[in-house]
């Protein structure tokens, strides 16, 4: 599970990795999960009338989020429910997956 965020499909997104397939309203895929956005893909998106996409949180070479950053984020999100044993199990599952992703997939 790549932590992701939604961004406007414009020049500022160049270099980002798309995390989910983007389809136009006829169901044709405009770009696939895993594609790295470049000017040409952005133009395709614009033509299909699509204005936002989900991309990985790391943006290009600088500002890459390390596994530690992601795990700290995870801590923050679960901070208020840590006392709950069921929630702890859930958090563990996600932490494991985050580490696996960073290592290059399960």
């Amino acid at each position, binding site marked *: 599970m790549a932590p992701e965020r939604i961004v406007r499909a414009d020049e500022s997104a160049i270099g980002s990795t798309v995390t989910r*397939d*983007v389809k136009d309203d006829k169901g044709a*895929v405009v770009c696939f999960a895993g594609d790295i956005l470049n000017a040409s893909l952005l133009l395709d998106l614009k033509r299909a009338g699509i204005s936002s996409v989900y991309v990985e949180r790391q943006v290009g070479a600088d500002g890459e989020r390390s596994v530690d950053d992601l795990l700290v984020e995870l801590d923050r999100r*679960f901070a208020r429910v840590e006392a709950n044993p069921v929630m702890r199990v859930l958090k563990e*599952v996600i932490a494991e997956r985050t580490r696996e992703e960073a290592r290059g997939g399960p």
Partner: protein
Amino acid sequence: MADREEQVGGSQREDIRGRIEEIEDLPTLPGVTAALSEIVAERGSTSRDIAELVSKDPALSAKFLKLVNAPFYGFPERIASVQNAVLLVGSHVVKAVASSTEVYGAPGEAALGLWDHSLGVALASRLLAVRLDVMDADEVMVAGLLHDLGKVVLYALSGEQAEETYRLAAEGNMLTSEAERQVLGVDHAEIGGWSAQCWNFPAALREPISYHHEPALSKRSGLKTAIVHLADVLVHAVGFGDGGNGLVPPVDEAAWNSLGLTEDDLREIAERVDDELSATATSLYRSA
């Protein structure tokens, strides 16, 4: 109802409640209505095709369920399935509704995240319902899709106020319910409950909408409410389509116990939910 903070005074609550009855339209995201109009116009398309599209959109689903459960049709509080709603209103009505539903010109991030989150909880609810061998897995899926109906309604009543509230939640590291109570004096579960009641939704939908944060309060649809509650927690946990700060709400102990799942089950389900949601294509976001 459990204790509710009423810092902002009863009048704002009553104002919101009153305005629900006057809602004429529930706008949706751009792209959806165009897609729907296209499907309706196609000669070969069936009501299943129409229902397939509608059941991914919380605003459209709510709209059709509201229509078909109106006393005017003759069987209020009976229909909880989008498929059946589409069959019973008929394609001529679907066509009229499709061409007239309004669209948010430039939806903010929180709105986009809400639509995705709703779809995520729909899918997770269905997964759980099938796993637990519940009879109406499709109805549970609709309940999951509509669990945050209160937020959809809030956007319809005042998009600006909605975005402001969710910004506050993100900045203040609060759950959205907390920010809502602070700004509006009422939270989305209650707003959703009022709406579901006003629109004559069956209990199987009304209760998960009203009680997805406090499942112990459900009376008639305890199991479905517990499922939607857990699905909501799971989808927040994996971080699908939040558009907010992603704080994960706690799972209710009684609800968890009532489902009879083990920790191993939880691991397996969480992984499946994550897999399935990662594979889900993003909604159609068209430029205005």
